[in-house]
């Protein structure tokens, strides 16, 4: 492949329409006669429904229908959970509450009206008609598993599952240690807060018996399958379209009650129905992330060598299982080896039901928790042994020649050079100088802290063996008669920029101009079945599918080219979109680069020139071949017309990106406020298709990490009331609070896929959080602080500074 585009900072082709406001999100799609849906949601965390009077709501002008849980209990299947764990308790999650409401925001009734205002008004009028008998709520997991009341009475307790994972003899490992370091850590509940909330538009054609659902989702095909099962419509009569999606961060890697309900209501009424989630609904009733409370114990030698690690953790699952809820903590278990050689690892997790919204995959999904545990405790170890945090890390790194590296969590890390990334970050930050400056600043009464994190993450999810619904990804590549290249990907980008990066891959591989490639995604009526975009998988798995589909397509193109030029295919060379007849001697010299075609040149010719006669020609472009393949007058025998190939790529392993982040903070002694004054991120995500996109992913991830480390928390009060219900109270970080990010990379290609890419979508949220908290703890170490829980609010810091000495 001549790398004309791959590896270059190609500007996102998606951006002009997004910046100009010309993109189409679900709410931008208007269908004549659309009815609007509003939900009546529980204001109690836990209550019994003793009656619902819908009569007042039905009197509101414009109201067409009101549905309650009892109306539809048997008509729509439960909200699905795809996670399979031994002895997992799976509650029956109906799309509308039937007997009890189990969290604030739990949908009780759906009101359908001719406009959205009438629907909202009627929902508000209906609420007092819901008779609820309040029950005590299960809220906090800080002190362990809450025993009473039991949320799902038939289960007998609030434990959804217990699981032990890991390899090695943990007891022996702990005995072999010189000392044990122990630290309790809280991973607070977070709300993903995609800029575009969820939204669904459903349209049923009763004559054709076809249902189309537009939904802001990350997984159009998986959603289609699940909705078909829930609603009971044949899957090939259901089309899911994912228009522009304004961010997901995992929150749209799900199948929600509202999606099924809208589809079903459209079928009942024979009209299009729309629901656009409000921000308050988004905070209350879209999945949350994190929410673990655990204690880590690490056995260490006096030189800093780790002998074993145990993590006992309670995971707050919320009231029900959404698609992957119980599986998220298992990802924590997988990543507890971090970037280190740890001979024995054990995680004991207890997943518990609480009267809250479900937790599920939020950017990083279980891995940020693991990275935080490991990287935070590395600093605790360094303090315990009075070593520099860097030395403890170096002591336990596997060397670059030890890969593939097997961990005691059962994984085989594909490739890595952790020392290289660490060294680059240290150099880039001027670490030694920073330490000197810190010392000076301390002498001057200033509080400066330096924190680092050498993370590893698991990406490119993943081999189908490890995935609940398949881990492959699909691509169809075809060259149209006019020479335009169409890429249909089963991945479903929603902000990642794969319309650009996949076009880069295709343009280089086919040898055409970038503008000749169109990447189509997110429409089950057009695109072959796919898995979707999550788990930093789209490029590593979906991009590879594109690449191999093109290889297949080119096999056929070469055959046609040889036929057209009347030579043997072995005598052809391919360069910059053009097949050339080689002299016998020259044909042996393959892989030799020719100058690439300048941008804008080449493809236009194919539109005007009829590619016959070809006798005597020595060169023919792949776009000419495409036309010939469609006209089908000059094809070799036994060759199908057309020029298209589909490939489903199944990866053999995950990929394991890594890196080192260094954060420097200054703390205001008067206010307790933490200010990040320097941030260095060196990430290794293997080969890079587009450095601009990688930087964008890293920046966004670090921002969300800063949010977790310093600001954000979903707070429920003792009664289970959500008190951070909108962005006035849920402290999403603002642009003005962000530092400059110095980003750089090392490049260790992955052997798992031919592109050598690893994935970078979640690196920021995985790698950055511990670096920030480590910096704050370091800044406060003169006060004897060894650990602080997130979010590290100014108040907590201020109290430490103001506490009387001694």
């Amino acid at each position, binding site marked *: 492949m001549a790398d004309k585009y791959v590896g270059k900072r190609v500007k996102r082709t998606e951006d002009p329409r997004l910046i100009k406001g010309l993109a189409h999100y679900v709410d931008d799609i208007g269908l004549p006669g659309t009815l609007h849906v509003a939900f009546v949601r529980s*204001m*109690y965390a836990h209550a019994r429904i003793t009656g619902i009077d819908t009569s007042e709501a039905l009197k509101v002008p414009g109201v067409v229908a009101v549905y309650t849980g009892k109306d539809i209990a048997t008509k729509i299947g439960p909200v699905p959970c795809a996670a399979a764990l031994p002895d997992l308790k799976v509650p029956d999650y109906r799309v509308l509450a039937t007997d009890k409401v189990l969290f*604030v925001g739990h949908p009780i009734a759906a009101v359908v009206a001719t406009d959205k205002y009438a629907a909202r008004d009627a*929902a*508000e*009028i209906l*609420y*007092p008609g819901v008779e609820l008998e309040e029950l005590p709520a299960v809220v906090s997991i800080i002190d362990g598993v809450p025993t009473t009341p039991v949320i799902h009475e038939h289960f007998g307790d609030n434990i959804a599952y217990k699981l032990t994972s890991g390899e090695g003899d943990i007891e022996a490992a702990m005995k072999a240690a010189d000392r044990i370091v122990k630290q309790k850590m809280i991973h607070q509940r977070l709300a993903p807060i995609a800029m575009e909330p969820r939204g669904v538009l459903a349209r049923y054609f009763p004559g054709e018996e076809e249902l189309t659902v537009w939904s802001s989702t990350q997984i159009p095909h998986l959603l289609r399958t699940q909705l078909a099962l829930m609603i009971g419509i044949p899957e090939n009569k259901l089309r899911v379209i994912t228009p522009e999606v304004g961010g997901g961060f995992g929150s749209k890697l799900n199948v929600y009650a509202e999606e099924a309900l809208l589809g079903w209501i459209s079928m009942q009424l024979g009209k299009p129905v729309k629901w656009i989630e409000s921000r*308050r609904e988004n*905070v*209350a009733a879209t999945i949350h992330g994190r929410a673990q409370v655990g204690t880590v114990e690490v056995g260490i030698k006096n030189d800093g060598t780790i002998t074993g690690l145990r993590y006992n953790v309670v995971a707050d699952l919320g009231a029900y299982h959404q698609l992957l809820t119980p599986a998220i903590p298992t990802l924590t278990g997988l990543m507890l080896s971090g970037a280190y050689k740890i001979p024995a690892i054990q995680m004991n997790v207890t997943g518990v039901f609480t009267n809250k919204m479900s937790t599920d995959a939020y950017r990083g999904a279980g891995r940020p928790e693991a990275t935080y545990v490991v990287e935070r405790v590395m600093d605790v170890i360094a303090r315990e042994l009075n070593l520099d945090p860097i030395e403890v890390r170096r002591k336990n790194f596997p060397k670059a020649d030890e890969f593939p590296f097997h961990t005691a969590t059962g994984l085989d890390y594909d490739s890595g050079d952790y020392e290289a990334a660490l060294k680059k970050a240290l150099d880039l930050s001027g670490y030694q100088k920073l330490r000197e400056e810190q010392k000076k600043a301390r002498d001057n009464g200033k509080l400066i802290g330096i924190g680092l994190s050498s993370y590893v993450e698991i990406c490119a999810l993943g081999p189908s063996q490890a995935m609940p619904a398949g881990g492959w990804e699909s691509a169809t590549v075809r060259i149209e008669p006019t020479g335009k290249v169409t890429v249909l990907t089963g991945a479903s980008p929603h902000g990642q920029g794969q319309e650009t990066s996949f076009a880069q891959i295709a343009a280089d591989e086919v040898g055409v101009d970038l503008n000749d490639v169109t990447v189509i995604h997110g429409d089950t009526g057009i695109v072959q079945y796919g898995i979707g975009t999550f788990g930093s998988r789209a490029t590593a798995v979906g991009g590879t599918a594109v690449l191999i589909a093109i290889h297949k397509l080119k096999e056929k193109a070469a055959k046609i080219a040889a036929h057209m030029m009347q030579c043997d295919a072995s005598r052809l060379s391919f360069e910059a979109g053009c097949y050339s007849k080689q002299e016998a001697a020259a044909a042996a010299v393959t892989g030799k680069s020719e100058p690439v075609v300048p941008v804008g040149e080449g493809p236009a010719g194919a539109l005007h020139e009829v590619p016959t006669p070809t006798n005597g020609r020595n060169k023919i472009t792949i776009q000419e071949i495409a036309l010939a393949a469609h006209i089908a007058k000059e094809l070799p025998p036994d060759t199908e017309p057309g020029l298209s190939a589909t490939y489903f790529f199944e990866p053999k392993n995950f990929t394991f990106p890594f890196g080192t982040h260094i954060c420097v903070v200054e703390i205001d002694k008067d206010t307790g406020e933490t200010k990040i004054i320097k941030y260095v991120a060196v990430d290794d995500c293997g080969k890079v298709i587009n450095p601009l996109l990688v930087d964008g992913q890293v920046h966004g991830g670090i921002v969300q990490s800063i949010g977790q480390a310093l600001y954000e928390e979903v707070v429920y*009060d003792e*009664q289970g*009331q*959500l*008190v*951070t*219900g*909108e962005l*006035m*109270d849920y402290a999403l970080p603002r642009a003005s609070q962000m530092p400059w990010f110095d980003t750089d990379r090392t490049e260790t290609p992955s052997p798992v896929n031919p592109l050598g890419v690893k994935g970078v979508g979640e690196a920021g949220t995985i790698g950055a959080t511990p670096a920030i908290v480590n910096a704050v703890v370091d800044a406060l170490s003169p006060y004897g602080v060894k650990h602080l829980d997130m979010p590290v609010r100014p108040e907590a810091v201020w109290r430490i500074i103001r506490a009387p000495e001694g």
Partner: protein
Amino acid sequence: MKISGTHEIQASRERVYAALIDPQILQRCIPGCESLEETSEHVYIATMKAGIGPVKGTFKGNVHLNDMQPPEHYRMTVEGKGGPGFVKGTGNFNLAETDSSTVVHYEGDMQVGGVIASVGQRMIEAAAKMLAAQFFKALESEIKS
């Protein structure tokens, strides 16, 4: 959530006490009160328009006065719900006499839920104080007239 406050009214304790349990006076004085109907002795059904910051709506509920010790003390139990949420609470009202006035001291426990809890919780105390001030001011002019 605990709520408490003190208001001084230039009138005798008996007069203030009587006004505080008079449904017609209360309806006129409670900010946003649309109706207050006595269903049995010291039990009322009320409709009230109220708002905290961006959260506004109509609440319907019951008010129950008990532990009546005129003119010194009574307890009020309130339970209301509306589109923006629900409110539940119990409060004790104590009236003390000074030379020329009555000092009303109230303290109570309040629970809110729904949208008012999720977006207005941090403003509730201030909003409640403001409503109480409006109420007592209106009550005072009602008594004086």
